[in-house]
């Protein structure tokens, strides 16, 4: 996956090392190897590899990780814009997949 890189410096991922207990859950669940375990704490080694799926934050037992998760899909984002700005658009059929 290293050949696939997306935009830089956009992710909302944050790790608070003070609260981290080094359980390793984030390292386990991240599909992009953003974290490693180092001296009994998690460490971010590839911030720009993060796709904001939220698996790490959801599974962190001490809430040391925060990220604004969402769906990285242009059609989905357009749907949310339409629903927010067009009154009565809540029943619109989606562009397709979900």
């Amino acid at each position, binding site marked *: 996956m290293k050949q696939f890189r997306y935009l830089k410096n956009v992710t909302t991922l944050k790790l608070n090392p003070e609260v981290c207990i080094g359980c390793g859950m984030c390292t386990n669940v991240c599909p*992009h190897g953003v974290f490693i375990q180092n001296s009994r704490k998690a460490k971010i080694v590839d911030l720009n590899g993060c796709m904001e799926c939220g698996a790490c934050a959801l599974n962190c037992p001490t809430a040391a990780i925060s990220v604004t998760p969402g769906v990285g899909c242009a059609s989905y984002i357009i749907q949310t814009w339409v629903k927010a700005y067009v009154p009565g658009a809540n029943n619109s059929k989606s562009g397709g997949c*979900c």
Partner: protein
Amino acid sequence: MQEMLPMHTDQSTADDEVCCGSPPAPPSSRNERPGYVLLPFVTHFANTAAGPVPIVKTNWGRNEWADTIKVRTGIGRDEAKIAPGLYGVGKPEAEAPVLVSANYKLSFDTLRKCIDGLDAWILVIDTRGINVWCAAGKQLFGTAEVIRLVKATRLDKVVAHRRLILPQFGATGVAARTVKKETGFEVIWGPVRADDIKMFIENKFHADNDMRRVTFSTLERIVLIPVELSFLPKPTLWFFIAAFLLSGISTEIFSFGTAWARSLMVMSAYFGGVFAGAALSPTFLPLLPGRAFSIKGIFTGIAATALLLFLFDGTTLFLEKIALGAVTVAISSYLAMNFTGSTPFTSPSGVEKEMRLAMPFQAGGLLAGAVLWVWAGIVS
């Protein structure tokens, strides 16, 4: 549930008789019940402490291939789902592992194909027919749903251990420690890909880094193209109507003959943009310049435009060439940008940033193309 009816007696004469040219179908399976359809991949029912559990085949036949082709081309995707609940493969007993699956048929079919040879339970949760990754993102492959199914299937009576193996992509929607607290079952995160499950179990639930990383090979990208195209028929029709109306505008107000001939050229530019954005861009994704998908779409759009202009060289004015190019590139950029939804590495923050920058240009390009096209129609 109604009791099973006794078997037919005297089979031979019924099967030999010819009915409209061929013998009649075999008698109904003893496992069928009024009001329920028996799925073709169920071989029999195992008796467990929590009731009968369907045991399913692990090999793919014509049915599975046909269903896969259908959903990959966008046909019947909303109905491609199975009933949530407990299923099994092989001869699962109290110590057999429990693998949790979405109820999207392709997810379930892929899983059972990959565990051929194992004895295992499959706990199917209700993700509304959506695959694991997308469902987890919408919290449908979620903590509450896993808890609900573990309780509803009385899984604690079926297995002696207290472990659930979930696909790693489910971690976006499932908090492992909450499942443990509410059900007593520990969540073990399985590999990203189903075909690593057998090795994962053999390695005593240990996954190496490769099993925990998502890939996006050329083949994995290409299989996504047909469904991207399947969303286009309706927008294409609207585009054609608009193209037809704009193409006929001339000094004689409107000419049907001209409209027809010129709209065909516009539709060629449109389909060029579609091919460039929805087929070429995904296929050559890592090779195309730029991080943003809308930029990659510009490059494939330019390539498609070059081909189109070569084909239409003698028959178009300079103004028309620019207009067609604008249409092709704008559409290609937009459709390439849309492919972000099918990739496992674009972040929503990044996609939103890209969209805010790119969409005004895409819309502007299309509008400029329309204006130039109409102007050329009036001027010629």
